[in-house]
């Protein structure tokens, strides 16, 4: 049966929401890992029943759990993330050198082709890989050893590797993003990396050609256009049409160009979604109105999507991994808020409804289209 499974990570565990292809009625299952902050969970494109989850708790640290039955049951797998060789240093907030130290996993990205292979983006920023279903994790150290590594500095949320994008047309090509180092690309399966931050402009970075230092919040790509990337930077919505070699701004008429989440329509590579957020100190939607903005022209021209979303007294945030799309014929769009609501649209954003209202603060939403 065609349907959608939403994998929702929250401050206090994970929830799994399911619906048939109409996406009008949803079942909420959970919490899984109750009490454990679940930054992210995601299913394997190669085996829809294989899901990796990354719950952590300050007392007992990081766990990685794996499901082989679509989230009905879970088993803990290896939680050891040890940096390769000499850890070296990055910059601390005051500019002093600080040794790399593992804190937690921000994002798990299963391989497009092998259910036993997955990538983990961690804080302090590094990329790890498993090829045995999570029984062991090895760092891809070429990223952390990029020449700019000693100059990477954490954003307010930590020095986190939060975005991992695989190019479906080239297994050796991958994009990642780090707050607040910037975006990077590999063309050799993660052995070596190139900083791809030219064209980004950030207040506080006077050098327009700075190799790193930009606070990239999230990057999205349509699988049919692996050279076109969309970025929600701390401030500014950006676009690149050459794999990140050069970016240009597409914020256009957005009410604020600050935000976290950005995603691309499953069937229209020029249709993108963002949720503008008011300022880097307040972190709530502007004017008390929850609005998704959609551009059907690849940026610059944006329309507010409000039908079904509350338009008064809303003071929530939508975080970087908390928006996702499904790939059914009529593209579904989903996002979760810091207030614990999950909203769904089964018509590419034209209309919305709350499919969960009182969850813990939502950290991530991943839509999984079930055949």
């Amino acid at each position, binding site marked *: 049966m065609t349907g959608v499974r939403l994998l929702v990570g929250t401050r206090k565990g994970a929830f799994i929401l399911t619906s048939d292809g109409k996406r009008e009625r949803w079942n909420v299952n959970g919490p899984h890992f109750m*009490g*454990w902050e679940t930054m992210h969970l995601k299913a394997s494109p190669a085996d829809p029943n294989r899901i990796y989850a990354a719950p952590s*708790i*300050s*007392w*007992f*640290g*990081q*766990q990685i759990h794996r499901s082989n039955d679509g989230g009905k049951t879970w088993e*803990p797998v290896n*939680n*050891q993330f*040890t940096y390769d060789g000499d850890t070296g240093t990055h910059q601390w907030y005051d500019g002093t050198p600080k040794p790399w130290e593992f804190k937690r996993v921000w994002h798990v990205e299963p391989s497009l082709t092998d259910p036993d292979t997955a990538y983990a983006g961690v804080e302090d920023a590094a990329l790890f890989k498993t090829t045995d279903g999570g029984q062991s994790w090895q760092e891809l150290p070429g990223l952390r050893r990029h020449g700019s590594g000693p100059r990477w500095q954490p954003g307010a949320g930590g020095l986190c590797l939060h975005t991992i994008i695989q190019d479906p047309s080239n297994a050796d090509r991958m994009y990642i993003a780090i707050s607040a180092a910037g975006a990077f690309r590999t063309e050799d399966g993660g052995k070596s990396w190139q900083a791809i931050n030219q064209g980004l402009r950030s207040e506080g970075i006077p050098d327009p050609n700075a190799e790193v230092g930009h606070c990239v919040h999230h990057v999205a790509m349509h699988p049919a256009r692996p050279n076109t990337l969309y970025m929600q930077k701390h401030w500014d919505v950006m676009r690149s049409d050459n794999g990140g070699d050069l970016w240009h701004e597409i914020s256009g008429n957005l009410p604020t160009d600050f935000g976290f989440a950005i995603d691309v329509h499953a069937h229209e590579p020029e249709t993108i979604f963002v949720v503008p957020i008011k300022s880097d100190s307040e972190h709530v939607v502007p004017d008390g109105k929850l609005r998704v903005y959609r551009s059907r022209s690849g940026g610059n021209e944006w329309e507010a999507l409000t039908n079904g979303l509350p338009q008064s007294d809303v003071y929530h945030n939508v975080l970087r991994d908390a928006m996702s799309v499904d790939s059914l014929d009529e593209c579904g769009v989903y996002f979760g808020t810091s207030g614990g609501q999950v909203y769904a649209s089964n018509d590419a954003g034209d209309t919305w409804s709350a499919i969960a209202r009182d969850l813990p603060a939502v950290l991530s939403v991943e839509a999984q289209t079930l055949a």
Partner: protein
Amino acid sequence: MIRVFLPTPLQTLAGTGREVQLEIEGPVTQAAILDALEARYPPLRGTMRDHVTHQRRPFVRFFACQQDVSHDQPDTPLPPEVVSGKEPFMVIGAMAGG
């Protein structure tokens, strides 16, 4: 036989109840108990102490005979009451909040 009390999150991870019982050969120390716990319940690795350095996680405490032994050296022998099983070795998630 050594009796160990685990906090609820670790019971869930290990798939046990509150108390687990361990046989330990040689001196009964904090390190020996954690070694035995992690060997029997691999999901507990990294939850009480660092995988590599074996440094105790900051919000994990160890009690024996009502005494906080968290700051003792890991190879310090534990009290006879723990060795005999009369008293449990307690792993506790520290009260943390504000």
